[in-house]
């Protein structure tokens, strides 16, 4: 805690000692937040710093393990969305939470009493009128009769924003509200924010865009690793020092040393295009770990998915060891030795309800069968046991269901799936997310070992410490394209993060 400046008057909302764990991983470790009446307050931090969890606690979506909360100086509790609303909180979440089949008006008034007409039926005309008025206040016109699913991302966002503003709240919480807005729409949003501020309302503004914070916010709270690091007036700081606060100074985590040096080029990616974002080109060498950094939504996952055949590339080409490589489905990529450890371990990596051994065997069934038809259960047990041992899996038995393991051990099972293969390129998307520190080191060790065996490794991670601790080179992505490719020699987080924010040249 440093540089704390307390605003005058009773805070309109005050959170102290907020603790929250998810399955043994501590997302928030005593975070605090204090909002003054009539201020625009920025909340910043790296991906995974705990901002979203903090907001979900305020919205009553996530129940904290411990927290003291005061609203207008009086002790309060938030156990549900209704509680939050009663306390005068209104939210624009990152996920817009619109009903896709409903029109704009129904979405704007969702959860609020619809205007009633004859026989207590919904008065459609009045509903549309009020919704148009709410949108007009934002200075935008959105087609009223079109289902939300068919609106543009920006129109959807404006609908969600209009919904938040029709609440007569005292605190408006906005989680990345400008992520999908055009410049004109952003300006209108800012105009509304100033009006709200002039009316004595408080705004908590979460954004990755530092320029926005410096143009509209009065104070800023910085979070890092689930804790509140500092809380200061925006005019007393600058982007560089804000970034330093977000990173922190401790690089406590240790990483296993490299076991080998990069060799020949294994994969060349040439102008690879996906549905969104700019085409991407780079080369990956055998035994190399290429870190991919970037803010949320910068296109890291979509790049890895296209390389692994999970989604189809829309253009460009790849050469794998000099031969054309154009996977149309995961199977194509796997056959060529390009495998993906996906971002969402539970949704994409594992069949949670099935035993560990079956999960490890899943990509290797052809090899673990007789005549390609009947399971060779002895071979399956032996090979799964071998793979589990080499990732140092801690489990009661291989018959245990994958869903019963801790996050770290689940991730080890996902790695074990690919150990039986001759892997040319290993694509890792957030390999240590939700993994505790001890298991993390073991996963890093597995990554190093696979590199030493000659695989080229692409490591996409929002944890910069991890990227800098492991990567030979760091590719920074921004808005779906490559912002910079940096040699990891004397590279620091500040430099990487500046590139992430598009401020690399400064």
């Amino acid at each position, binding site marked *: 805690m440093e540089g704390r400046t307390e605003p005058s008057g009773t805070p309109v909302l005050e959170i102290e000692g907020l603790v929250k764990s998810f399955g043994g991983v501590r997302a928030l470790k005593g975070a605090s937040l204090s909002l003054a009446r009539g201020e625009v307050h920025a909340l910043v931090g790296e991906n995974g710093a705990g901002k979203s969890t903090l907001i979900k606690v305020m919205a009553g979506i996530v129940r904290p393990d411990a927290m003291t909360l005061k609203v207008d100086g009086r002790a309060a509790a938030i156990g549900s969305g209704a509680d939050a609303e009663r306390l005068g909180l209104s939210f624009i979440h990152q996920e817009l939470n619109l009903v896709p089949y409903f029109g704009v008006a129904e979405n704007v008034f969702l959860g609020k009493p619809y205007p009633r007409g004859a026989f207590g039926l919904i008065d459609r005309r009045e509903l549309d009128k009020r919704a148009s008025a709410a949108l007009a206040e934002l200075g935008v016109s959105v087609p009223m009769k079109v289902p939300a699913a068919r609106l543009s991302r920006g129109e959807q966002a404006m609908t969600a924003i209009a919904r938040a503003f029709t609440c007569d709240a005292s605190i408006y919480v906005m989680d990345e509200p400008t992520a999908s807005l055009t410049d004109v729409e952003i300006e209108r949003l800012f105009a509304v924010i100033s009006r709200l501020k002039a009316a004595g309302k408080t705004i908590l503004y979460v954004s990755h865009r530092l320029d926005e914070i410096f143009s509209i916010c009065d104070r800023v709270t910085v979070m890092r690793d689930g804790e509140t690091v500092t809380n200061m007036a925006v005019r007393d700081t600058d982007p560089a020092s804000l970034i330093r606060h977000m990173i922190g100074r401790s690089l406590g985590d240790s990483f296993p040393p490299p076991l080998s040096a990069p060799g020949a080029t294994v994969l060349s990616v040439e102008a690879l295009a996906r549905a969104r974002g700019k085409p991407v080109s780079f080369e990956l060498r055998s035994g190399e770990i290429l870190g991919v950094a970037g803010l949320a939504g910068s296109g890291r996952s979509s790049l890895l998915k296209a390389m692994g055949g999970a989604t189809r590339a829309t253009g460009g080409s790849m050469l794998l060891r000099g031969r054309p490589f154009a996977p149309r*489905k995961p199977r194509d990529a796997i056959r060529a030795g390009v495998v993906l450890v996906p971002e969402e371990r539970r949704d994409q990596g594992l069949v949670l309800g099935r035993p560990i051994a079956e999960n490890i065997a899943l*990509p290797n069934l052809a090899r673990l069968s007789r005549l390609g*038809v009947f399971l060779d259960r002895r071979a399956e047990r032996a090979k799964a046991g071998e793979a589990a041992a080499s990732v140092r899996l801690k489990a009661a038995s291989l018959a245990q269901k994958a869903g*019963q*393991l801790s996050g*770290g*051990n689940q991730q080890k099972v996902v790695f074990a799936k690919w150990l039986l293969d001759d892997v040319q390129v290993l694509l890792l998307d957030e390999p240590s997310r939700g993994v505790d520190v001890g298991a993390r080191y073991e996963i890093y060790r597995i990554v190093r070992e696979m590199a030493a065996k000659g695989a080229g490794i692409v490591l996409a991670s929002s944890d910069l410490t991890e990227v800098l601790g492991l990567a030979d080179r760091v590719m920074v992505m921004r808005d779906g394209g490559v912002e910079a490719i940096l040699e990891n020699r004397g590279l620091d987080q500040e430099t990487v993060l500046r590139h992430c924010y598009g401020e690399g040249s400064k």
Partner: protein
Amino acid sequence: MDDIAIGKGRKGAGDLLRKWGTLGGFAALCIVFSCLRPDVFPSMGNIRNIIDQAATLAIAAAAVTMVMSTGDFDLSVGAIASLAGVVTVKVMVATGSIALGMLSGALVGLALGAFNGLLVAYGNLSAFVATLATMTAIGGLSLLATGGSTLFASIPEGFRTLGQGTLGPVPVAVIVMAVVVAAVWVAMERTVFGRKLYAIGGNAEATRLSGIDVRLVRLGGFAISGLGAALAGIVLTSRLFSAHPQAGSPLMLNAAAAVFLGATAFREGEPHVGGTLLGVLILGVLGNGMNILGVNSYVQQVLSGAIIILAVLVSGLGGRKRS
């Protein structure tokens, strides 16, 4: 980290009930009926009767277990069974060949099942909608082919053996049932295909990302379900020694009920063929016992529904506890 906390924490009375409750319920049913009618219910003749009666349902239900293990559903089972019976009789009558007739019926089932799979896996229709539509259309085909009447003229006498004959003391239909159930068990529990079915049922996206052709496997499941339905329809046709355009209709809901009941037995909430067989026997014993007691058949239907709800509730409690 607590690697094994969840797994070990769940051994208790509730766990035992979930695992063995369905089998226990089956035993309880048998005991109750035996006590109420000790002279009739537990006799060898009656037991044989129950199993014999259950044969067609067991064949259809075993095959549909495959589709349901991937999380899909097949409403067209009954309609396919009816049409397969009609085709079998028509071809037999036209050619005079029993074998050719049965083969045609079976192939029609396989083809229609594959068509369902095509709609669901490649056309991305929901299984419920797709098979509701094919059920309706196939029902129409059967009515068209028969003109809405029952076919019984000039069926070769030898066709009786399948549904009515015996091999020693064992009915031929029961042998067919045993072979089908065993084949489905091997396919689901001991082959690569079965492993893929279960993986898709657990998490289709993770399975796809593991390099498995999810669509092809789902299509295979539907094709086998269609084949099983056709076999059930052919046995039923032989038993009735006539082809009625709606003879197979009751199979659909009963097969689904048997799979649901079975999914509550031994393993949590996962369809598997052993459970399905138990489900078929529960339905069979229930119907037989209530008939012996002279329970009104409308009341029987209400009780059957109530018992399915009870069984699924008991296993459903486990699901809620987990989350």
